[in-house]
Structures are given as structure tokens and as C-alpha cells.
């Protein structure tokens, strides 16, 4: 699934990484717990989370995850945008809940990690 389609399905705004919207993403992983994200062995995935802080972006960077959807209408701040730019992260913001976002993406064909 392209990042562009993910943004459309989730009615999301793109706050960073507009140049990467045609990239294909194979899987999705929903978690507010970064400890769990760091245990994943796969990396071609989008992280869907309601945890809006710098560590969510740092975690994605370390785990070679290149796109994050922040759900529940949470807004990223300037220092997060700056870090996202530096790390080449694509950042989407969706007004939907974590459950609804995950459900819609699953229905649209995004695969689970496990």
C-alpha cells in the first residue's frame, strides 16, 4: 500500500515526507508502547501510535521504520517535525482512533506484523 493511500484512508494530514508518498508499505503495527516496537524484526512497516513525543520518532529511526501515523487527532510539535526531517521520516496525523485507523488499514490490505 502506498503512503498516499494510507493518508487517504485515514483522512490524514501529511506533516513531513510529502516527497515519499509513492513509497510502498507492506505492514502496519499499532502500539503506544515503544518497548514493543523495538522488539520487531521487520522494518517495511508503518507505525500507528497515539504516543506523540520525540521518542516515538527516535524509536522508529532505530527500528528502520520510515513512516508514522499519529492517531486520535494528536498534533506533532516543531521539535518533532525537525527530528522527522533529519531522519527522513514520513509523518501523518489522523483524526481517527487507534482502533479505527488500524481497522481501516487492515481492511484496505495492509498486513499485520504478527
Amino acid at each position, binding site marked *: 500500500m502506498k503512503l498516499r493511500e494510507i493518508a487517504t484512508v485515514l483522512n490524514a494530514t501529511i506533516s513531513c515526507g510529502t516527497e515519499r508518498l509513492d513509497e510502498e508499505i507492506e505492514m502496519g503495527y499499532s502500539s*503506544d508502547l515503544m518497548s514493543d516496537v523495538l522488539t520487531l524484526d521487520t522494518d517495511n512497516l508503518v507505525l500507528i501510535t497515539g504516543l506523540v513525543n*520525540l521518542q516515538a520518532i*527516535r*524509536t522508529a529511526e*532505530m527500528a528502520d521504520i520510515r513512516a508514522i501515523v499519529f492517531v486520535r487527532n494528536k498534533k506533532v510539535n516543531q521539535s518533532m517535525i525537525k527530528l522527522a526531517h533529519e531522519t527522513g521520516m514520513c509523518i501523518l496525523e489522523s483524526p481517527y482512533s487507534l482502533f479505527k485507523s488500524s481497522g481501516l488499514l487492515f481492511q484496505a490490505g495492509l498486513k499485520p506484523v504478527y
Partner: protein
Amino acid sequence: MNYLYPRLDLEFETRNLKLFFSIQGGDFTKAGLLSSEVKKVLKQLNIENKTIKSVVIALYEAEVNVVAHAYRGTVDVEIDENKITILVSDEGPGIPDVELAMKPGYSTASTSVREMGFGAGMGLPNIKKNTDEMWIETVVGRGTRVKMLNYF
């Protein structure tokens, strides 16, 4: 941390590279900064992506541990031809029961650490998973040293 780059160029030929960082306990805004720097260096050295990911995840977990539990810490990184060795030393409370701390799910992290998305009791087990060798030395009331080794 701009000083990293001239140093890197200088020692590129021998491919024996030493890096040193310090960590401030409790400062979550900077957690991950040094792991990110090490990641950039390993990419410049053309290390395999899978290995880089393991190294930086282990280092990031260790960095978060220092920020979450200790007062301050230092990180010594040594890269040579076939391996990377990282020593993370902190001044902090130490670990009373290492075996228990290595158990997935066991955590003593505070509520504020959990609110940052950590403190699930996965840090030390995940360091073990992502390294080829790992040692812990700890003295209660003094601090902890975690040594990590990955082969390329």
C-alpha cells in the same frame, strides 16, 4: 556532536574508531541522540543494515535505561575491522537482582518513564537479543556497566 566527523575521517583508513558520549539521567528530550550518531557512523562504514539495526536498538535501549534509571552515564564505542564493542556505564541505583531484571516484563520504571512509551521490562532482554555478547556489572547504590559486542 559535530566533532565526530573530522575524527571519523581521520581514522577511516585504519578502521579503528573510538567514540565517546555522555548521557544526562532524566533528560528524555535527548534520549536517542547518541544512538542516532552511532547509526550514521556505521552507515558511513558500510556495515550491513541488519547489523546496524541490532546495534542501534541495543544501544538505544541502554541509553533509555540510563535516562530512565540513572543520574548520569557515559558511552564508549569502539569499532574495528570485524566488531563493535559498546560500554555503557552509569552512576545510579544499580540493579539488586540482575536475573530478575533480565526477565521479560519485569520493570521498576516510574510512571513518567512509562508515559514516554518505555518501562515495559523489555530493555535488558532486548539488548541480549540484539547483541552477540552482553555483560552486566552492577553495584547497588553505585551504578551499572553494560558491555555489548556485535560482530560484523
